[in-house]
C-alpha cells in the first residue's frame, strides 16, 4: 500500500496554508501600517522628536515620553513585587496554598483592561489623590518627579496623572511578570537548591545565591514581556492619564501615551494627514512591542533549551 495518498498531500497543504495565516498576519501588520502612514512617514524622525501636534505638523514626543515613563513606573514597582510573588509561589508555598494563590494571580491577568480603567477611575484615583499623593508631595516633593509645579489647585487634585496610569499598569503587568518568573524558577534544577543547602544556606540565601542567578535570563525575559504589555496598554491608561500633551517632569501631572493618543483621537481625526499620523503612532507602537516581545520570547526559548540541556547532566 502507498504510504501517502492524494488526500494526505492535500490535507498537509491545507494545514500549511492555514498555519501560514499566522505568518501572513504578521507581514500584513507591517505592510499595512507602513503604507497607511505614508503621508506622514516622509517627515522622518521629526515625528518622534517633535512636540508640536497641529493639523499639519505631527510630533509624538510627548506621547512617546508618556509611554516610556508609565512603563518605567510599572516596571520599577511591578518587577520587585512580581519576583517576590514568583519566589513565594515556587519556593515557599506548597500544595493548596500554592494553587489557590497561583489561581488568584492568574485571575488578575484575566480581568479586562477596561474594567481596570473603570476601577482605577472611581476607586483607585480618589484614593491616591486624597491619601497618597499629598503625603508623597509633602515629604518627597524636593525630588522633581514628586514635585508639584505652582498652580492654583494642587497638581494631583484631579488624580488622573502619569503616576496613576503607571500604578494601574503596575497592577496589570504583575500577573505576566510573576507567571513567567515563576516558570523560570520552577525550571531551576533541584541540584541548584541542594548544593546551597549542603553549604548550610538558609532558604533566603539559597534562593538569592543559587536559584535566582540560575533563572536570571527567564526573569529578564519576563521583564521584557511586562514592558511590552505596559507600553501597548490602551484602555486603562486612556481613562487614567488625563490625555494632555505635555512633557512634564512631575509624575503627578497629566500626560499622554501613544496608545491612548490613538484611542482618544482616531474618531476625531479630520484630515487624511491626521489619520496617517495616528497610523504612524500605531506603527511606532508595533515596532517597539514587536522588538521587546520578540526578545522576551527568544530569551524564554533559550532559557528552556539550556534547562533541557542541563537535565541531561
Amino acid at each position, binding site marked *: 500500500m502507498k504510504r501517502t495518498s492524494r488526500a494526505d498531500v492535500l490535507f498537509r497543504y491545507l494545514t500549511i496554508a492555514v498555519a501560514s495565516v499566522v505568518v501572513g498576519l504578521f507581514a500584513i501588520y507591517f505592510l499595512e501600517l507602513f503604507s497607511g502612514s505614508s503621508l506622514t512617514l516622509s517627515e522622518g524622525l521629526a515625528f518622534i522628536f517633535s512636540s508640536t501636534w497641529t493639523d499639519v505638523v505631527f510630533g509624538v514626543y510627548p506621547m512617546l515620553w508618556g509611554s516610556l515613563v508609565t512603563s518605567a513606573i510599572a516596571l520599577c514597582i511591578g518587577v520587585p513585587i512580581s519576583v517576590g510573588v514568583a519566589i513565594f509561589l515556587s519556593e515557599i508555598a506548597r500544595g493548596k496554598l500554592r494553587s489557590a494563590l497561583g489561581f488568584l494571580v492568574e485571575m488578575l491577568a484575566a*480581568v479586562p483592561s477596561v*474594567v481596570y480603567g*473603570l476601577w482605577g477611575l472611581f476607586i483607585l484615583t480618589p484614593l491616591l489623590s486624597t491619601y497618597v499623593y499629598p503625603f508623597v508631595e509633602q515629604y518627597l516633593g524636593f525630588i522633581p518627579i514628586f514635585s508639584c509645579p505652582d498652580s492654583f489647585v494642587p497638581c494631583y487634585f484631579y488624580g488622573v496623572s502619569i503616576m496613576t496610569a503607571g500604578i494601574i499598569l503596575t497592577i496589570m503587568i504583575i500577573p505576566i511578570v510573576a507567571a513567567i518568573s515563576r516558570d523560570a524558577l520552577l525550571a531551576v534544577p533541584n541540584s541548584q537548591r541542594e548544593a546551597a543547602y549542603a553549604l548550610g544556606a538558609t532558604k533566603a540565601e539559597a534562593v538569592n545565591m543559587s536559584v535566582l542567578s540560575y533563572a536570571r535570563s527567564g526573569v529578564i525575559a519576563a521583564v521584557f514581556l511586562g514592558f511590552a504589555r505596559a507600553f501597548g496598554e490602551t484602555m486603562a491608561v486612556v481613562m487614567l492619564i488625563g490625555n494632555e500633551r505635555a512633557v512634564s517632569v512631575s509624575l503627578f501631572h497629566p500626560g499622554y501615551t501613544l*496608545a491612548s493618543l490613538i484611542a482618544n483621537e482616531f474618531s476625531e481625526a479630520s484630515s487624511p494627514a491626521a489619520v496617517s499620523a495616528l497610523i504612524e503612532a500605531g506603527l511606532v507602537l508595533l515596532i517597539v*512591542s514587536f522588538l521587546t516581545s520578540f526578545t522576551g520570547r527568544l530569551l524564554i526559548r533559550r532559557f528552556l533549551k539550556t534547562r533541557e540541556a542541563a537535565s541531561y547532566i
Partner: protein
Amino acid sequence: MKLRRFVFDKLWIAATFATVVIAVVPLLSILADVVYQGIASMNIDFFTQLPPPPCSAATCTPGGLGNAIQGTIILVALSGAIGIPIGIISGIYISEYGNNSYGSSVRFLGDVLAGIPSIVTGVLVYVLIVIPLRGYSVTAGGIALGSMMIPIVSNTSAEALKTVPNSIREASHALGIRKWRTSLLIAAHAKRAIATASLLAIARITGETAPLLLSAGISQLWFSGLDHPIASLTFYIYYFATSPYANWKALAWGAAFILIVIVLGINMGVRIITRTKEVYSS
C-alpha cells in the same frame, strides 16, 4: 546558625508573602467593587432596554444596555467563527506536521503576534477594512477580534495536541490509517483540551475594547446589519465611565459586572473542569 541569618530568613519569607498580598489585594478590591456597584444596576431593563439619555437627577428615564449585550454576543460569535477553525487547523499543523523550522517559527511568531498591543490590531483593521468600507461595521469588529484569536487558539491547541501520547499516533499508523485521518483522530482525542483552549480565547476576546474603538465603533441602537456599527459592553463601559452623568456611570458598573461574570466564570469553570479530569498526565 547565627540569629541574624535566622531572622533575615524569616523576614525575607514574610516579605515575599507581603508581595503576594500586594498583588492580590487589587483583584479582591476590583471584584468587590464591581459586584457591589454592578448588582445595584441589575434589573430586567438592563438586559432588554436601549441606553437611556444622560441624566444626573434623582429620577431618570429607565434604560439598559440590551443592545450592548446583543452586540458583544454577535461580535464574539463572529470572531469565534473566524478565529477558532483557523486556529485549530494551524495548531494541527504545528503539532502534527510542524516538527521543522517552519513549524517552530509559526509557533514563535504566534507568541509574538499575541503580544502585539490590541490597539494596533484596531489600527490595522481600520486601514484594511474600515477605510475601504467607508465606516465602522460589525464585519470589521469581528475580523479584528477574530484575528486576535488566531494566534492564541493556534498555540494553545498545538499544546493540547502535543499532550496526546505518541503511542496513539503509532497505533493508528500501524493499523494503516492514513496520516490525515490520524491527525483528525488525534484532534478528536484532544477535543476537551482544544475546547478549553477555545473557551479561554473567547473569554479573553470578550473583554477586548481597544480594537473595537477602531473597527466596530459604537451604536445607540440594536443590531441592524453587518455593515453597520454595533454596540458592545466594553465600549459602553469606556464611554459611560468617562461621562459625567450618574445614570450612565451606574450602567458602566453594571456592564463591568456582566463582563466579569462572563470572563472570570469561563476561567474558573475551565479551572474546575481540568482539575477534576486530568487530560493526559504523561
